[in-house]
């Protein structure tokens, strides 16, 4: 468990971050394309290089939040995945790697992720972001229910 702020406080802070970040940097928040920058790190820095810096800051925030909550500890096995699906260590690891690959492939195909499409894009009223978010939710619901049906859910 982390800090666990009430949903409306956490939501207002995440949402409020978007216009403040735009005012400071002139840019719209987006995270998944930071991974593209990493993949093209050998090329000269283009206008998107800031996304790599932003992505590098994220772990620092997680470190601070878990430290403040007193929950920072080293976890090498994803216990919550095991507990939710009743699967072994290898299956747990495979779920993370395969899930990650689908995230990367899907985000680059859809042109963004939960931050760029589902928060910023929806807030701008963009058609592409509404369609992408409907896809995120459809895939997420279908995969979760299929996984639980396959594994029998919590052991």
């Amino acid at each position, binding site marked *: *468990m982390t800090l666990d702020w009430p949903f409306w406080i956490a939501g207002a802070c995440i949402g409020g971050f978007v216009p403040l970040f735009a005012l400071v*940097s002139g840019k719209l928040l987006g995270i998944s394309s930071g991974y593209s920058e990493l993949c093209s790190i050998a090329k000269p820095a283009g206008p998107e290089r800031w996304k790599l810096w932003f992505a590098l800051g994220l772990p620092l925030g997680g470190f601070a939040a878990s430290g403040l909550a007193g929950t920072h500890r080293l976890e090498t*096995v994803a216990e919550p995945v095991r507990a939710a699906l009743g699967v072994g260590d290898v299956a747990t690891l495979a779920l*993370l790697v395969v899930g990650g690959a689908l995230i*990367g492939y899907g985000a680059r195909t859809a042109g963004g992720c939960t931050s760029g499409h589902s928060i910023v894009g929806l807030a701008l009223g963009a058609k592409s972001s509404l369609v*992408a978010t409907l896809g995120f939710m459809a895939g997420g619901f279908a995969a979760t229910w299929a996984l639980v049906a396959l594994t029998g859910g919590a052991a």
Partner: protein
Amino acid sequence: MKALVFVASGALFGFLLSAARATDYTAIHGMFLLKDLHLFGVIGVAVATAALGLWLVRRAGVRALGGTPISLAHKPFHNAVFAGGIVFGIGWALSGTCPGTALAQLGEGKAYALATVLGIVGGTWLRQRQTSPPKVA
């Protein structure tokens, strides 16, 4: 110097994702099972707040610090957006994270998120390779 501003912004955003419990597999799994609606509330309030804030920014017609114009462009729509979204959603459910929260998880000590991050890098690389084939020298 500029890089430092972005690292600090990323740190603040990672902190907020963690405080929102968006870095918690159980919260995301519970959201898709409709057992724990906390994250739906977070996303809903975040979209509404961001919409109001961006509307104010647009209305004020201001420039960012340093005089740079603020870009409020929509992401382009094309036929693969929905399919890509579904693929992303499946990955979101399997790993219980998204690109940003996986990195924040690493900072929380959840070393297993390294597997997710490496997966995301691999998937990103593959898609980039498909869409822009390497030039023959």
